[in-house]
């Protein structure tokens, strides 16, 4: 029974990694841009929620809805005025610019909030649990996983059931031909990054509620997000959720064997998938 519990806890933890990864997957899927500042943007989102909680006295669950439009605007402007300039045949400029952005964000957060670790204020909900048979599940991990599933379902609906979703896919296929259809690729890319930062804000809420955070933890979140995206297959949203779950389960199983193996087990699972299926488990057919 302990193993069943371990695996269920791993699946729920995978929801958090899927939330870290969904925005990265969206941006890569639409414009083939690998955003190395993604993890730092999650941390920045957590600080933004913290500021709103502190200044306005809001619950973190309310503050996240205030933060979402702000983060959308930030993402839109970041893409429209900075990252769009780096897109082209050469993959190096976006990597260099987002790497620089990552360092700048970390230093700005250090300057603004110091290196002390912070945590979003918790309440009874964040420590509550439910018992299903002999297994006890935390309400917060359940909420995290449910949010991840909702985000993936929402993104799939957006991509496959809406006009902007068609434009995302068309621009991803061929931006020049998309512009002949009246689509402005620069605006499509900016909208995609704006939506990615809305998802980042949701990830930031759970990051801040479940654990301490400080300005330096962004790169590790980026690695987990990367691994989830690559395990799932680049551009596949459901694959990203599945990738998150694989890392989560590997980590909890690794930790159950030896607590020191938790992080290593997640990375090993990633390497094994990469060896067996280099394009991930559910790659897009036309990638």
């Amino acid at each position, binding site marked *: 029974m302990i193993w069943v519990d371990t695996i269920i806890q791993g699946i729920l933890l995978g929801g958090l990694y899927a939330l870290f990864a969904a925005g990265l997957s969206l941006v890569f899927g639409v414009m083939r841009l690998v955003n190395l500042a993604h993890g730092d943007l999650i941390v920045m989102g957590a600080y933004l929620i913290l500021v709103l909680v502190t200044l306005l006295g809001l619950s973190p669950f309310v503050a996240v809805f205030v933060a979402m439009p702000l983060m959308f605007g930030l993402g839109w402007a970041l893409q429209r005025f900075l990252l769009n300039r780096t897109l082209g045949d050469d993959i190096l400029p976006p990597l260099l610019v987002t790497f620089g952005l990552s360092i700048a964000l970390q230093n700005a957060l250090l300057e603004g909030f110091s290196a002390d670790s912070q945590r979003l204020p918790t309440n009874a909900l964040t420590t509550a649990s439910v018992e299903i048979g002999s297994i006890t599940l935390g309400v917060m991990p359940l909420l995290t996983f449910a949010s991840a599933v909702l985000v993936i379902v929402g993104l799939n609906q957006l991509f496959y059931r809406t*006009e902007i979703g068609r434009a995302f896919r068309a621009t991803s296929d*061929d931006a020049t*031909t998309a*512009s002949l259809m*009246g689509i402005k690729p620069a605006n499509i890319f900016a909208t995609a990054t704006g939506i990615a930062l809305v998802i980042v804000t949701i990830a930031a809420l759970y990051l801040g509620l479940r654990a301490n955070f400080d300005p330096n933890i962004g790169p590790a979140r980026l690695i987990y997000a990367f691994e989830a995206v690559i395990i799932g297959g680049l551009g596949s949203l459901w694959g990203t959720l599945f990738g998150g779950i694989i890392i989560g389960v590997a980590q909890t199983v690794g930790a159950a064997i030896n607590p020191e193996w938790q992080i290593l087990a997640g990375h090993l699972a990633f390497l094994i998938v990469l060896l067996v299926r280099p394009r991930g488990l559910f790659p897009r057919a036309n990638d």
Partner: protein
Amino acid sequence: MSLLQTKDLVAHYGDFQALFGVDIELNEAETVAIIGANGAGKSTLMRSISGVLRNDAASVAFDNRPIGGQSADEIMSLGVAMVPEGRKLFPSLTVEENLLIGTYGRKTTGHWNLKTVYDLFPILAERRNNPGTALSGGQQQMVAIGRALMSNPRVLLCDEISLGLAPVVIKDIYKAIPQIKAAGASMIVVEQDIAQALAVADRVYCMMEGRVTLSGTPDSLSREDIHNAYFGASH
């Protein structure tokens, strides 16, 4: 009064100059054919008019407005749609989604909508849920034409719509052109197949090495004139 006009249009790919002062004109309700051998500059001319290649503002005029400096999406929004060479369907989209993307971001009014495009090319209605790129070459060309029509353009630019297609399929595609004209679009058809071009065009421009070497109505041009303009007088 011309609907679309190029004046002293030049185009470059890096250091290579592809067009040397091209002047062409398209009148309302007219079909103009651009013929010429490979590398004559026909597709570059289409890319320049459609905004894929940027030019001096005054070098392209639509409805007496300079549009040469505008982007492809702006030019499309003005009412100039293009069927690009090689069809360029979006692989991630189904046939119907490829058609619908032609109306992106605007409510168009006019003859063309999903129903009338399906009436024009009935096979597309049967294949509406297939990926666009899973269709035969001819069917893909029908999707590309339908996609451009969905925006109800005033000017339709068709770049090499018969390229790589079997003669029987080309015939089917060209059968649609009178209906497209009847619905009100003016057209520029780039074509290597001279017979097809002369059959549908009201006027013809022949290009060679980035220049217009001949123009006139199909009736006014002799075989020899066209041969000389197409290949050069020395051939």
